[in-house]
């Protein structure tokens, strides 16, 4: 029983590493998003020849500036897509962890009954705590990944008809990560590693 718990704790350590990767990817995504939205926000202004004032003496300047900005935007959107791939990799790792977590009890020599799963020794977590915790971590990150994917594609659409209010809302959602509830995450880890806290 105790060795089982140890194995689960290993999995949670792995999950914590994956989640810290997630945080790094998140800050990269936010800065890419900021860069993209500042370009999108000024597209309208830079398309208007009137705003070029003295620069209008240079033939074709507005086309050239617009072209360069669109190129940069394209590059940023591409790297955001790569960033999304990195998020996906984290979600897949978490998925594997929760799958392995479920297999661990199924694979043990004597099938555990519900009572055994709920059995608690001292401050140690129950096996059910461990299994459910891993499932929860995976579910949260999967949901958040799906949300982010749709936000990123919404950004590409916004590039065509910018609206600063929408940009702000997208940014807020990206920063908030509404599917990852940090309180719940903390709670899961507190239960699993209760003995280390004491």
């Amino acid at each position, binding site marked *: 029983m105790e060795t089982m718990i140890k194995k689960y704790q290993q999995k949670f350590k792995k999950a914590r590493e994956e989640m810290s990767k997630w945080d790094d990817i998140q800050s990269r995504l936010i800065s890419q998003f900021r860069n993209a939205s500042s370009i999108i926000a000024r597209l309208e*202004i830079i398309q208007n020849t009137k705003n070029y004032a003295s620069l209008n*003496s240079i*033939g074709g300047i507005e086309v*050239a*500036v617009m*072209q360069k900005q669109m190129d*940069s935007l394209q590059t940023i959107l591409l790297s955001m897509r790569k960033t999304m791939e990195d998020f996906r990799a984290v979600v897949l790792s978490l998925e594997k962890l929760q799958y392995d977590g479920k297999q661990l009890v199924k694979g043990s020599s004597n099938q555990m009954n519900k009572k055994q799963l709920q059995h608690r020794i001292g401050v140690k977590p129950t096996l059910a705590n461990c299994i459910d915790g891993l499932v929860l971590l995976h579910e949260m990150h999967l949901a958040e990944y799906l949300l982010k994917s749709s936000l990123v594609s919404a950004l590409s659409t916004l590039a065509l008809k910018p609206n600063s209010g929408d940009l702000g809302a997208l940014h807020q959602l990206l920063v908030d990560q509404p599917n990852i509830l940090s309180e719940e995450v903390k709670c899961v880890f507190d239960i699993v590693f209760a003995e280390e806290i004491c």
Partner: protein
Amino acid sequence: METPEPKSQSSSLSSSSSPFPSPSYSERQWRPAAQRNLRNQWSKMASYRQQWLSSSSSARTHATSLVNAYLSQKYMPLMELGALKDMPDIRKKASLKLFKQQESHGSKLLSSYKEMVVVVMNMVNASKSMRCFLKGGNSSSLVQFSSTSGDVNDTGDCGGVAVFGFWSISSFERLAEELIQMFKLELSLKRLLVSELLSLSCEVSRGNQFCWSNELYPGEFGDLKVCNLYSNETFEPVRPRLKDGKSDMPTFQGNRQPGHEILQVYITTWLAEVNIDVHRVDEIFAMIGEEIHVPLS
């Protein structure tokens, strides 16, 4: 992709233009010196490019701060000051402070611009120093080479032989010229932006009016002449244009009190570096680096 054609050595050309007694002997002597020189000049070109990037980006920071200070002054009369509004002369004092800030950002912007002029000058000089000439003719017993020609018959390219694997000196020069052309056009555009930004003023009486045909800093025209950016016909700097484009040459009277949208376009234009094709620049340095066996990026 445009790759310089390797020039095959033409024996008739080398015997007529080379000052050396025999082509095989001279080539053997000349090549190591020419290789050393090219590696040297191209490493410099690569570092000039980095300097350009850093000067251009700090100039943009100064330009943005300048624009912000100017806009704050412009909107000062409309600003909601809350509890501060009863302080005597508060708007006037704040405006004066912002004006001082604008001036200081302006002088930083100008010195970054000056750095960029120096970068282009250095690039031009490096591109003119790619050839390798025999020093003191073939009479002296010790064979030495230099970057300046001592003999009218010495073209410095050993009759157009390949210096490393494939390319002759003139192939290297052509690529350097292509690079410099981009930076020159961009410098000219940035000069217009600098003069517009330095002319910003909330009050007609204050600030300097920068005119295209006046120097932005003492000695600027001398520097621009080195870069071939000063016209000896019109006696003013060459007007900005895009590659293959033209300049309409209207009067650069400039709007001294442009709104934030125009200023945003100015800053964006600074950032965009429309004349510099980054991919082509990378490609040129990669090709050269491979040819001279020195990584340049």
